[in-house]
């Protein structure tokens, strides 16, 4: 079997300007942040980002990486709004395709199943259809004749997801309470790159969790990146929860044009190792206050 281990920077080297990139997780939960940080360090641009959005979207928007965002929401969960995303929208710096959460999933599912669309009730009557004039409806061929929204596939050039464990071949496992939509992202994409807390032997996967926790099959995975704390500052339960103190620091810094360059300088200008070291330092400084 193939050894698919690679580094975050090697993943980013596989991506190209203008690609459509799906990002797994949900809000500020199990986001592939180490891979996002690698994109921040790169020259990639003009991306179409498809995400149940959290700080991944805010950070990529702040660095000018996003041309278009496909989303249903962007939130930090315990903090309602991401300041960078708000600023990017209010300054007109990004284009958007705004969907209902269920429509978003229907679009991913259509891509997974290689269908031209999936019908859904969600969106009808709302301004989702007004602000997305390309959306079409479809009439049931049966006697009910219902006219439903036909959500086109959200096909992705690449998907980035973060799982608790993976083997070197790409079999990947979630150990928290919610798989989110990472399996759909993986199968909707031409190539899926998984970052993981720990690369383990295949046999260890079922030793640590039930077989139902094996979310991604290696056939859906192109590359595996070992990235401990790679979802930080979002949650990766049960390995760690959301770093609320750090997230507050992120949001406060993002809101303040004077403070943001200092945040970038300290946390985002170096590599992942430097980031994690600075986070450790930040945590002990804050604990001492």
């Amino acid at each position: 079997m193939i050894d698919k281990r690679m580094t975050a920077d090697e993943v980013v080297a596989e991506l190209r300007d203008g690609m459509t990139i799906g990002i797994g997780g949900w809000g500020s939960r199990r986001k592939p942040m180490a891979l996002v940080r690698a994109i921040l360090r790169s020259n990639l641009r003009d991306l179409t980002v498809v995400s149940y959005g959290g700080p991944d979207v805010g950070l990529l928007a702040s660095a000018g990486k996003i041309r278009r965002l496909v989303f249903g929401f962007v939130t930090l969960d315990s903090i309602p709004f991401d300041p960078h995303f708000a600023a990017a929208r209010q300054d007109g710096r990004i284009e958007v395709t705004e969907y209902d959460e269920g429509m978003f999933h229907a679009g991913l599912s259509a891509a997974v199943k290689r269908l031209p669309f999936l019908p859904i009730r969600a969106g009808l009557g709302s301004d989702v259809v007004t602000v997305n004039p390309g959306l079409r409806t479809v009439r049931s061929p049966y006697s009910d004749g219902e006219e439903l929204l036909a959500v086109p596939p959200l096909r992705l050039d690449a998907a980035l997801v973060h799982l608790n464990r993976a083997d070197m071949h790409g079999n990947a496992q979630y150990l928290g309470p919610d798989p989110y939509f990472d399996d759909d992202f993986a199968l909707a994409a031409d190539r899926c790159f998984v970052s993981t807390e720990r690369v383990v032997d295949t046999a260890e996967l079922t030793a640590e969790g039930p077989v139902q926790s094996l979310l991604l099959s290696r056939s859906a995975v192109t590359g595996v990146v070992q990235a401990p704390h790679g979802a930080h500052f979002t949650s990766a339960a049960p390995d760690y929860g959301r770093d609320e103190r750090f997230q507050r620091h992120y949001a406060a810094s993002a809101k303040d044009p004077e403070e943001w360059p200092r945040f970038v300088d300290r946390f985002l200008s170096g590599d992942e190792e430097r980031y994690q070291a600075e986070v450790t330092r930040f945590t002990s400084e804050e604990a001492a206050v």
Partner: protein
Amino acid sequence: MSEATRAEIAIVACAELFRGDGEVVASPMGLVPAIGARLARMTFEPGLLMTDGEAYLVAGTPGEATTIEGWQPFKKMLDTVVPNGKRHVVMGTNQLDRFGNQNISAIGPHSRPDRQLLGVRGAPGNTVNHRTSYWVPKHSTRVFTSEVDVVSGVGYDRASAGGPAASRYHDLHRVVTNLGVCDFDTPTRSMRLASVHPGVTVDEVVDNTSFELDTSAVTETRLPTDEELRLIRDVLDPDATRDKEVRA
């Protein structure tokens, strides 16, 4: 028992939203609706199902050990729970118009908003699939607007214009605020002031609403019972966090 506060009256009005719902998932957003839903489950609506805000359905009452009674990750919620309809959501809103159209997406033009909000989230799907209520902690003309900028949750007029598939399961129930309770029980399905909370006048609600409210049959919101007050104060919210959402 000391007199009920406004927050406590609002909690009971939120609990009343769920009366008769049976075994459906109650999804209250906001502190007062969350306490209200739990109060309803502890008293007159024991069949309600509730999540822990993550992926578990949890049984039992606060103070007891939490018992997981089900698994409802986000995908299951969007794929089956919402479209299947056994759910009653109480959403917040930044704007709400006379027919119950809600905006949580953006203020101003969608192409370049004056103020970006959350995004439409699941509001379009919620409103055309199952019963929906709203909670407004501060009733004001800023929230109760004549038109909303981005229709997220679908109101009665837009559901009707959206065709039979949009209106088939559409069911806007009530709007609870810090001042009173509104519903849509009018011939045109426009908003009606159903009750004012004790100590609030009809004029006060009208003055804080940008559109014309039907005020032809306004009653007074019922007071909490002594048992409800005890549950709110001693069991559900002993730290009185409710007073942060609704000022006395």
